């Protein structure tokens, strides 16, 4: 979604981040544990993941179960906790299953975006020269594109299922990670340990995968975490415009879209899905922020 496309050049990572080995992650974990908002966010995310995984056991109804005689039941009335929608679906059940979709899309899209970005960043940073130039111009172009409009366009033609949505979000979300990784690689490849590995005759792949990437992991992880929230928001926005996940598969975005037409008579339908999106994205942002502070306080993402 319209997250500010403001990316500051990655600052040089703190000295301790450059030191490989166990110690670094232990320090980070200790620091993370002290971060209350991040831990709160993590707890809620864990809860949401559990709810999504165990949805079939938690949900009181089948998510596609229709009850035409019981449409628009208000919340806390009768057998439906959060009421029913325009087809008599149980809203609570739909929220649980929609959470599955949103989380899967969020994780998968963020992962593919970061993976693609890492690939581009590594290639551009390590090989430099013309390749670097071409890839960075491509990054400029994608960063300049009105991404939301392009996503709408692609969503119109390929949307509907989970896989295409993941693919199109990933396809346009890699630029931040690419620039970040490229900067890290540029910095790392001139450092002693990389030079040493090269002098010892290590292969290029070995240098990249054993020496450079692990050291650039911290910013990649932070970018991925923050991207999950962004991807969830994007999916919801696309579904809200009717080009994302299609019914009968529930997603928070399409539930919200559906609810908007009943704002006058059944306003509660619009409340819950939006609240879930908000809560989930907020938790990912809390967690990502804490993670950044823990892994590398001077990192600017």
């Amino acid at each position, binding site marked *: 979604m319209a997250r500010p496309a403001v990316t500051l050049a990655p600052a040089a990572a703190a000295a301790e981040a450059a030191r490989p080995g166990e110690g670094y992650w232990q320090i980070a974990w200790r620091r993370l544990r002290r971060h209350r908002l991040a831990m*709160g966010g993590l707890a809620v995310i864990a809860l949401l993941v559990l709810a999504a995984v165990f949805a079939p056991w938690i949900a009181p109804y089948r998510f*596609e*179960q*229709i009850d*035409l*005689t019981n*449409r628009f039941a*208000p*919340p*806390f009335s009768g057998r439906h906790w959060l*009421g029913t929608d*325009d*087809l008599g679906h149980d809203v609570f059940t739909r929220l649980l299953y929609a959470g599955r979709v949103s989380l899967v899309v969020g994780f998968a899209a963020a992962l593919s975006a970061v993976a693609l970005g890492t690939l581009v960043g590594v290639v551009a940073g390590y090989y430099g020269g013309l390749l670097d130039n071409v890839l960075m111009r491509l990054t400029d172009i994608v960063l300049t594109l009105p991404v939301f409009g392009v996503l709408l366009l692609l969503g*119109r*033609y390929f*949307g*509907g299922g989970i896989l295409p949505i993941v693919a199109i979000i990933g396809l346009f979300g890699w630029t931040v990670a690419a620039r970040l990784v490229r900067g890290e690689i540029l910095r790392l490849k001139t450092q002693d340990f990389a030079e040493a590995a090269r002098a010892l005759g290590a292969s290029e792949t070995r240098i990249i995968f054993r020496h450079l990437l692990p050291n650039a992991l911290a910013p990649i992880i932070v970018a991925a975490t923050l991207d999950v929230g962004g991807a969830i928001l994007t999916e919801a926005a696309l579904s809200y415009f*009717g*080009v994302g996940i*299609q*019914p*009968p598969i529930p997603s928070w975005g399409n539930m919200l879209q*559906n609810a*908007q*037409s*009943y*704002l*006058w*008579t059944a*306003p*509660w339908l619009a*409340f819950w899905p939006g*609240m879930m999106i908000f809560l989930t994205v907020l938790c990912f942002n809390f967690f990502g922020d804490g993670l950044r502070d823990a892994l590398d306080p001077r990192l600017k993402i």
Partner: protein
Amino acid sequence: MRARWHHAVILLAAALTISVWPAGVVQAQPAAGRDTVVIGIQQEPDFLNPLFAEMAASVSVMDTIFVSDVERDNTWKLFAQGVESIPNLRDGTWKLDGDRMTLTWKLKARNWHDGRPVTCADYVFGHTVARNVNVPVVVRDLTNRIANVLCTQGAEGLDIQVNWKERYAYANLTITEYGALPRHVVERYYRENPSKLNEAPYGNDPKVTIGDGAYRLVEWRKGASLTVESVGTHPIFGTPRIRRIIWRFIPDTNALVANMLSGAIDAISTIGISFDQAVQLDRQSAGRFRVFFEPGLIWEHIDFNLDNPLLQDVRVRRAIAHGINREAISQQLFEGKQPVSHTYLPPRHPGYTDNVQKYPYDPARARALLQEAGFTPGPDGIMRNAAGQRLSFEINTTAGNRVREQVEQIIQQNLREVGIEIVIQNFPARVLFGEITNQRKFKALAMYAWVMSPTSDCDQLYTSDGIPTEANGWAGQNYPGYKNPEMDRVCKAASREVDEARRNQLLQQSAQIFARDLPALPLYVRASVAAAKVGLQGFTAVQLSGTYETWNVHRWFWQ
């Protein structure tokens, strides 16, 4: 801090759940005076030039600016508006000559809004422009069937003779395809650049866009509103009591509802809100306005792709029909306001008959039919035949159309109970109609609507030459791929039959064949919805092709 936020959420949630819409300030009075009607409309007209008007909103507005040759009233009955009488075979104003035909018309005298009389020459000019291949007119169906248009009493006269190249059943509904154009105004633009005639001032600029109707275009603020004013006493319409009509373009349907509730508009056009919103609006009307539900011409159905081997068996198609609770969809989802349909013609169509094979909801009968066709329930509850093929069908419809998505889910649940699996896969309208249905790429079922007209028949729709193929450029509307020589014969005969009674008989026959063979499953007839303040008299929710609520504007008044 977090605790406080939680309180706020709970409060908000509770508040949201117990809320009721309070009846606002009641305003049943006209929004802009007793000589004015303000209509809220969702679309904005494209061109107010009969040649290029593609949008329903344009047709609706042009009904007030132009005289129609022959018009329909709200009961779908035809009457002569701009002509003295409708040509017919009995008095010889409609003559058949082998395959060719000649129709003789006499215009009622009236003037263009600038005072020049409407003459035969204006009709000839309109026809000439429509025939020019460089003019971006979309439909040239009648234009291509007409051999020529002649002025029998001179160019300035009122007598017109139209010679047709071929027999056509509905030749007496309009003199030419697009009627008269004010030649003295339009000819200049036409000579300048025929290929950009649609962008010319005529049809866009109120100063030069003149018609011959009871009202004249006075203002068109793009994106905001359009105003027409009565020309005073009109030779055909007399003196309207409503002097001014203002259309407000409100593209957002929620805002349209809000404007009706606040009294800022006097009526909502049939080109306005959705069925769902109309139902909600009706509940909030509180006696201030009436919401109209009028069964119309739009016919929702499911096409069976007859290339699908499982669907080639009529028993499977009938089982699907018996397995879907269409009555419940109509009663519960649509509150009985959109009736179940049993044939391809809407109930008010002159060729409609109720005497067709019907498929009431009957799961037991559906299962029996499937068993008869060789299907038995598998371990997953889905029926399969001896070859092991499961009865699993993909259904496609337009993504984002909520009502269709609702109906789809009900069908999915209904058919599961008789052992048929339905897999939902929807496409954006442009993909569905631009690729999937018209190139017959749908795997099994396609749900959408046909917009019929009072003159629709089954030619091209269910005749074998109407099956779209690559060779014919994907032309034709027979998307199921239905082939039946008997149907071909009846439909072809109906489209050429000029005698109305005999034509209707043929159409009834075609409806019976259709219901028996079931190439498509009729679901329901969509209702046209509109709303008007109770004080506005004469308003009707008509939505025919070419006739909208504005057909009798000159007879509206405030009470």
